């Protein structure tokens, strides 16, 4: 283990973690009012030379990590921006991500994957004190009106009709993200792991372990057991690809009438890595459901076998069972880290716009730990 470079983390992501710790000193965060947002948008548009003004500003529901507002644009503006969405960082959240990176990836995949168009980005928070991004508004729902479910798209039931219509689209979108050519895509704030090395896996373990180190509060020996297993079994990635990083039910919109996917959202965890990572994330039990036969359904829609077969057919890649397993452990590791550390710290310090949600979501660590135990037991067998 002495040869592993535990300091290897994407530079921009490390910078964000240190910035967050500085911001923490500013104390609790008070959610912005629509009026404050309106004034901030006026400043932003003046700074960026956008000849329009905001109107009918409303806060959007959902979103465990960013403050979101929807508003109309009045003035000289392209039709796709006649209605817009503002995504703005709170002081702290369940994850620490970069609006500049998110805008870069949205621009890189635009036209290849259904995503909202980017109007502008203020990565340093010049206009409103917090980093932000503005995109065009795209209509759609994250779940059927009758789908039930809990916070953040969890425990949703899609139903047979919706599942039948969305399954192939969902997998095609997934494959299309991985097909984006990285070179020349404008992903300036992203680091690219070296092909044929363990960089892709190592950077992930290092990053989430750093988050634990900086945000850790309560003990969880299981997480450290996973940490040592992950370092011991780092897989090689031959072909790093663009990953969505949070590809799951709740993070895409579809039209309830046409049953077409209208937009893939929440690209803040996007990075370049091993395609198994996105697959493993989709296979996390929390993001699906079990059918009447006890079979797990990805996104409450289809089986893991179906997803693997369809993905292999679309991409020509072969899914490696051992690598997939490693990334399942990583998925558990990072989800527990988010909920067991950063989430609780933000809720404790009142530095988020949804402190009650973060404190509530932290309870999910119990369920995630159960999955982690199963995965590590499988590894030891």
């Amino acid at each position, binding site marked *: 283990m*002495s040869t592993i470079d535990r300091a290897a983390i994407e530079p921009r992501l490390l910078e964000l973690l240190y910035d967050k710790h500085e911001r923490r000193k500013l104390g609790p965060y008070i959610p912005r009012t629509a009026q404050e947002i309106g004034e901030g948008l006026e400043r932003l548009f003046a700074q960026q030379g956008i000849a329009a003004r905001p109107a009918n500003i409303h*806060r959007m529901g959902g979103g465990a990590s960013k403050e979101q507002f929807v508003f109309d644009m009045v003035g000289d503006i392209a039709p796709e921006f006649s209605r817009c969405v503002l995504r703005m960082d709170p002081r702290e959240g369940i994850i620490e991500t970069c609006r500049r990176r998110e805008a870069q990836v949205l621009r890189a995949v635009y036209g290849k994957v259904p995503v909202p168009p980017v109007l502008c980005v203020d990565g340093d928070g010049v206009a409103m004190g917090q980093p932000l991004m503005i995109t065009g508004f795209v209509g759609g729902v994250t779940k059927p009106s009758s789908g039930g479910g809990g916070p953040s798209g969890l*425990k949703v039931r899609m139903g047979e009709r919706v599942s039948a219509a969305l399954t192939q689209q969902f997998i095609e979108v997934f494959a299309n993200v991985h097909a984006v050519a990285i070179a020349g895509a404008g992903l300036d704030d992203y680091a690219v792991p070296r092909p044929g090395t363990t960089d892709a896996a190592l950077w992930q373990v290092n990053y989430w372990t750093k988050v634990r180190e900086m945000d850790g509060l309560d*003990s969880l020996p299981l997480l450290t*057991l996973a940490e040592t297993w992950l370092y011991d079994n780092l897989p090689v990635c031959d072909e790093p690809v663009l990953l969505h990083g949070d590809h799951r039910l709740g993070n895409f919109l579809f039209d309830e009438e046409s049953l077409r996917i209208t937009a893939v959202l929440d690209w803040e965890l996007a990075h370049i890595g091993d395609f198994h990572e996105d697959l493993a994330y989709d296979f996390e039990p929390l993001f699906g459901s079990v059918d009447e036969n006890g079979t797990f359904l990805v996104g409450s829609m289809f089986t893991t076998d179906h997803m693997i077969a369809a993905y292999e057919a679309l991409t020509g890649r072969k899914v490696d069972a051992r690598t997939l397993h490693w990334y399942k452990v990583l998925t558990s590791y990072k989800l527990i880290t988010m909920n067991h550390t950063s989430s609780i710290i933000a809720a404790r310090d009142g530095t988020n716009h949804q402190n009650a*949600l973060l404190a509530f979501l932290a309870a*999910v660590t119990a369920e995630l730990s159960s999955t982690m*135990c199963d995965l590590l037991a499988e590894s030891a067998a």
Partner: protein
Amino acid sequence: MTPNPTIRLQSLLQTLEHVIFPAVDSQNSLAQEQCGLVLGQLRMMIQHMPWFGAYHALCYDDLARTVAGLPAHGGGDVSGKACAALAQVLARTAGMEDRNAAYHDLGHALETLLRAVAEDGERSYRRAVEAQVLDFSRRQSLRARTWFKDAGFDHAPEDLPSLEQMLKK
């Protein structure tokens, strides 16, 4: 203490549910969502209120038994120091009144040992430590799932015991 904390919380819950939350702007989706979360969290806390002490004691006692049952040290200096430190923390926390703080102090020391045995522990020693930590983690996960069953995240809530069943064992 009169009124007891459960009655105080219940009175807050009723007031929030029937007086304050209905007056919240129905167009303010953030406020509406937070109301639901506040109610859910308060209901869980009222349910947990009589059991906090018993739950923390149960978790600590199992962790302490796990640590006490670890095999004799085998490995290099790093493992040796972590093993000795763990024994000291076990002795110190045994007398702590705050069982939740005791649990996390001991848990952190166990995490240090896990990293140490990964660095220079003998293979068989490391395997034995890790196997016991995994067994403990399974039991702890089951306890935590039961504790937070009403949060609605569990994949099989019907398989879990009630808080009373778990804590009166």
